[in-house]
């Protein structure tokens, strides 16, 4: 299961933001989008964990201190049909007057680089330790009990649980129980479903 892409759109133009949001949601899910009319609003939010930033050339130049180090994660909206030299040569950009098809291609270019790393990290198989944790979860143990039994810290248990959920795409204990029985990690007799 892919993690949601966290995206910040820093644009004063509401229609532009919404248009961009709808293209991102339609063509590049899953995304989680936050809107900021100005750069100040973004800094005021104190949130700096975005995977991507969308902004216009003016803000990019004005807040170059912020955007330059994040150049590979930033997309600049440029007023035109075709890209010309200048800023656009070295940075990711969308030409807002181009056709939808071209804009989608431009967005694709931004996201492809990253996608590879995401898919390689989501290895489907559970590790031995994760299987141990899964067995205990399914038997109804609390996180604390699991930590004690396996001699690991509570935080480690939590991170194992998070990884299990990401790998299997299953969140609830009932769902995990089902998966465990199905894959012989635990026998159906041990447990009441």
């Amino acid at each position, binding site marked *: 299961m892919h993690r949601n892409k966290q995206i910040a759109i820093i644009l004063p133009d509401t229609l532009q933001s919404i248009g961009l949001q709808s293209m991102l949601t339609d063509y590049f899910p899953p995304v989680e989008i936050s809107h900021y009319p100005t750069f100040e609003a973004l800094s005021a939010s104190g949130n700096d964990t975005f995977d991507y930033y969308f902004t216009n050339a003016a803000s990019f130049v004005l807040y170059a201190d912020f955007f330059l180090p994040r150049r590979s994660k930033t997309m600049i909206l440029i007023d035109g049909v075709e890209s010309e030299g200048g800023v656009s040569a070295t940075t990711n950009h969308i030409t807002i007057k181009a056709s939808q098809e071209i804009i989608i291609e431009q967005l694709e270019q931004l996201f492809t680089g990253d996608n590879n790393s995401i898919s390689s990290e989501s290895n489907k198989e559970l590790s031995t330790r994760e299987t141990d944790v899964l067995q205990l979860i399914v038997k109804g143990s609390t996180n604390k009990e699991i930590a004690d039994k396996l001699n690991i810290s509570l935080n480690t248990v939590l991170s194992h649980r998070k990884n299990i959920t990401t790998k299997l*795409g*299953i*969140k*609830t204990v*009932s*769902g995990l129980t*089902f*998966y465990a029985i199905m894959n012989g990690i635990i026998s159906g007799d041990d447990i009441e*479903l």
Partner: protein
Amino acid sequence: MSEVVEEHPSLIPVINRFGIRLGLGDKSVKAVCEEYRLDTDFLLMMINTFLNEEYFPEKKLQTFHTSQIIDYLTKTNQYYQRYQIPNIERHLGSFISMSTPGNNILNLIGKFFSSFKEELTSRIEKDDRIWFPYCLSLSEKLKEYQSSGQIEALHLGTEQRLEDPIEALLADLKSIMVKHLSGDYNENLCYAVIFAISSLEKDIKQHNRIRYRILTPMVSAMEKLCI
């Protein structure tokens, strides 16, 4: 009105909840609402939020009366119990019996669904017995306050809602079938099951949006005023 329903047949159960039945003719939404004595704004709002996931005008929804919202939620609950759950069960039943017997995984899916059903049923029961009457009594109390001169608008907090267990269970059920199904099974019936689960999931998402983002904040605001 008929045009929008033709375009989006998934609306049919929604309008049924309001008592509107098919055979709409060429009547406008307004005319239909007048005929059934419904609040046009409220119906439109429900239809729009149902169709469009981005559209969720919290401020405007919160101006409707508590009893309207509870009435709608009660009806969606009834719809789950009377139609959608039995519907999935029917599909699931034939899916399990028509697929190769001995595919244990299918029986397990059946069990998993039953545990989901129990969860949903108990939530509905709690709604009917405790939660909804409580919300209504609060809103009655508030009316008395307001008529006695203490008119104050509700100040709604914006709390983040936790993951809903019902939604999570359904998502898991679907995910298990899509990602982890194995062995021999009947493709057509499998699709029917997943399709039915998806449509229930979509409906419950809408229900939960109203429940957690409208009703819950309204209630906590009323509590602050009354107590």
